[in-house]
């Protein structure tokens, strides 16, 4: 199975819009949404059946037993995450607690337990295709492992030749977890100063992995000069530049109606078809375009 991951660095460049378009165009039978902080792919790829749902457990969370607590304050003093507050008794802030269990060892009254904690919800749709997605529960940290589980649920439930993965913005742990094991990363960027700056950071992050990297520009004609700069940058750094998609006002309505850029004839569709061709070449042989 070849795995294609769509990343961006900056949010809002069009990862999900491009990912859904590529899924439609390629008729991919395996896809996943690894943006567990703010999953959106399911809004475009509408599903008929209910998914198989699973709870995802993160690190344990501390709980102070009020009956045993003697208010000595040692737990609060030793907590490095400001996760213990006094509010009619000593209480753990579940969002701040990182599950380190230091409080349990400094407590002289054995008043603190570590309890299992659900930090995410996984959904696996299995029709004629497999779609794996998940949502991180608000305020949770450590989303990398949830991302890994999303990918695992996908790869273990299909033997489709191509899997397309909608990634998350940023450069942190969930992004790193999503890059692991993929064959190619497509960076969707936009012709803005912010987009360029973030693209550089995501390229730096991606370079540590064996996956091939390619860049495309979304909404390129909103600033053609900046778009040229991005192309030049890719050329200088030896990164495959594989296409530019024009801004399309109708894109928002298409997406709002559960459609993709390839569901409407025009320049956007042409651009995506061109990008797809080059992706296939890179995935199945060529080193660089």
């Amino acid at each position, binding site marked *: 199975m070849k795995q294609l991951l769509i990343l961006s660095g900056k949010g*809002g460049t069009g990862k999900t819009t491009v990912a859904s378009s590529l899924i439609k165009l390629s008729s991919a039978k395996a896809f996943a949404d690894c943006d567990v902080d703010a999953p959106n792919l399911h809004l475009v790829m509408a599903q008929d059946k209910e998914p198989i749902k699973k709870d995802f457990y993160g690190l344990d969370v501390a709980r102070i037993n009020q009956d045993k607590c003697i208010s000595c304050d040692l737990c609060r003093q030793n907590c490095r995450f400001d996760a213990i507050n006094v509010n009619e008794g000593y209480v753990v802030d579940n969002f701040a607690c990182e599950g380190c269990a230091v409080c349990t060892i400094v407590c002289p009254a054995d008043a603190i337990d570590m309890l299992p904690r659900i930090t995410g919800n996984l959904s696996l749709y299995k029709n004629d295709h497999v779609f794996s997605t998940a949502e991180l529960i608000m305020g949770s940290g450590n989303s990398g492992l949830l991302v890994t589980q999303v990918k695992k649920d996908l790869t273990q439930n299909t033997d489709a030749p191509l899997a397309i993965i909608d990634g998350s913005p940023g450069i942190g742990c969930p992004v790193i977890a999503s890059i692991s094991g993929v064959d190619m990363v497509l960076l969707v960027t936009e012709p803005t100063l912010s987009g360029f700056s973030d693209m550089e950071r995501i390229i730096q992050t991606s370079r540590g992995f064996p996956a091939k990297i390619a860049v495309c520009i979304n909404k390129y004609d909103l600033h053609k000069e900046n778009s040229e700069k991005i192309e030049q940058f890719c050329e200088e750094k030896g990164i495959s530049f594989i296409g530019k998609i024009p801004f399309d006002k109708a894109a928002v309505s298409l997406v709002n109606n559960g459609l993709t850029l390839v569901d409407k004839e025009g320049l956007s569709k042409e651009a995506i078809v061109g990008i797809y061709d080059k992706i296939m070449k890179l995935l199945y042989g060529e080193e660089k375009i």
Partner: protein
Amino acid sequence: MKIAVLSGKGGTGKTFVATNLARSAERCVYLDCDVEEPNGHLFLNGPLLSSSKVSLPIPKVNESLCDGCKKCVDFCRFNALAFVQNRVIVFDKICHSCGGCKIVCPQDAIYEVDREIGQIESRTYKNTQVFTGKLLPGEESGTSIIHELFDKIKPEDSLVIIDAPPGSACVVMDSIKDVDYCILVAEPSIFGSHNLKMVHELVKLFNKPHAAVLNKSLGEDNPSKDYCIENNIEILADIPFSQELGKLTAEGKLVVEYNNEAKELFKDLLDKIYKEVRI
């Protein structure tokens, strides 16, 4: 007064709103808490004045005192320690800096050293003092950087604008927990409204007074606007999609410096926010 600008979804215009609001005030402190991909300083682009390291304490083992009891390895919930060939190995990047191993060691053989995870950069741009948090690529948690950013606020700073990270994970919570007011920026796609809902739940959970700013509106169906109306979220501004504003922003320019309408809009918005907070 501390105002956080958040969005749930990336790319809706958090930084666009936050930087232009900052520029519209008489004086202001700007905290860029989007430590993975900070962008505010590209717009409020005064020269770099200083850069300070942000570090986390990492354990080190004094091998002459270590007797191989492995209590530290067994205690660590993050698997950041291993005991091999009579030595404790510390895995820096996995360590959460909780200090637990140091506490459990019966021989007092563990001490701590600093490990850099990011920086805080300081700049001044006209009326605004800008502090930018930057997480080193490969690092996981920006929480401590955000804490240090908030430490930069002085009592005499009457207006602080916080550019929060996208999403609703723990770093977003860190960015808003001490603020007085939250502005939720939303774009008119179902992606935008879906993520608006997430971030709305977050601000409600933290009991933060809040209002919405709609950005890049296309004048037709706006699921984000619908969400605001259905949920009684006041809409303080509805900024239409504008190729001109987009181009200025694409070039790293503050629209309030180049476009009179935008200048009026942001001045109005700031006034409205002041009124809301004073109530």
